[in-house]
């Protein structure tokens, strides 16, 4: 079985942990994330007949803003950036955030996910797509289990590239 480290990044409160909870059930205690800024979960997925064990590093915030150790970003095979569709401050500087993550991790691509779809209407989401400075790959709702599996499947596929 192949094992891959993947990152889940985004500002505090955007719903990263809820997405992981939807995707995997096994996880470490709540305390870890507030203490050292990361929670690690594992999930085995099968992609194109290949079993892949994902080690998901759910990183609280980005290195620049929140003093997250740079080492958390090293050695990862893929990354997903999550923002909150209902909070403008989480996506206005998205292009700079993504650039910073690419520099820290050495990755060429980062999957962009707008979460909390259940809090907005279709029109509001259409407007947000116009404001966000990068292309959004998935609009998800951890609460309603919308697009969660799809976004993690893409993350897995990217980790195999």
């Amino acid at each position, binding site marked *: 079985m192949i094992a891959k480290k993947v990152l889940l990044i985004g500002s505090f409160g955007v719903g990263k942990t809820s997405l992981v909870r939807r995707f995997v059930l*096994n996880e470490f205690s709540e305390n*870890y994330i507030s203490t050292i800024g990361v929670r690690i979960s594992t999930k085995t997925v099968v992609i194109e007949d290949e079993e892949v064990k994902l*080690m998901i590093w759910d990183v609280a915030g980005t290195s620049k803003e929140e003093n997250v150790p740079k080492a958390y970003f090293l050695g990862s095979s893929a990354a997903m950036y999550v923002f909150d569709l209902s909070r403008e401050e989480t996506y206005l500087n998205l292009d700079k955030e993504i650039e910073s993550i690419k520099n820290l991790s050495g990755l060429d691509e980062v999957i962009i996910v707008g979460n909390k779809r259940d809090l907005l209407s279709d029109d509001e989401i259409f407007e947000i797509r116009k404001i966000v400075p990068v292309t959004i790959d998935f609009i998800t709702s951890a609460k309603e289990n919308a697009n969660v599996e799809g976004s993690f499947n893409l993350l897995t596929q990217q980790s195999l590239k």
Partner: protein
Amino acid sequence: MGKLVKKFIIAEITKLTESINQTINDKFSLTQILKRLFKGKRTDADDVLQEVFEPVIEEVFVIGEKTGLLIGIYSRGNIADKDMVSGMLTAIKSFAEDAFKKEGQDLEDIKFETFQLSMVNYNSIYIATATSGVITSEFKEKLSDNLNTLAEKILRDRTHLNDENKLNKLIEDILILD
């Protein structure tokens, strides 16, 4: 409740006393006295402590330095999710090194209850060992030598990094059976 605790403590102290007495008796036999005449710097206290609280390697993790991915393992107990443990160890290590960073310094030891967790960095991997008991300088030196031998073998023959069973056997041969 108080009586129960008292009873438990008395029973444990009795066991400990018996063990220490047995060790002292053994150590003061004629053969042992003669042996001690020719031994190095170890004190009698060291001898007794080591016999009573013998150091034991409980767990060994060979982990990718940056990825935190588990490459090989030896474990006496049952670890619920060894991959998650190796990831968390790597995160804690990175966190501590970042928080108290001074150039060229790494997190080497973590102590909790009767366990001591030691981490040694090598090129692209690090080896974490959890030991219990009283860690004497002699045990530490031997462990350090064996860890260096293990790392050298892994890095010389990189097939160990992709074959968990082969690496697990190597860990056992060098650190546990030796």
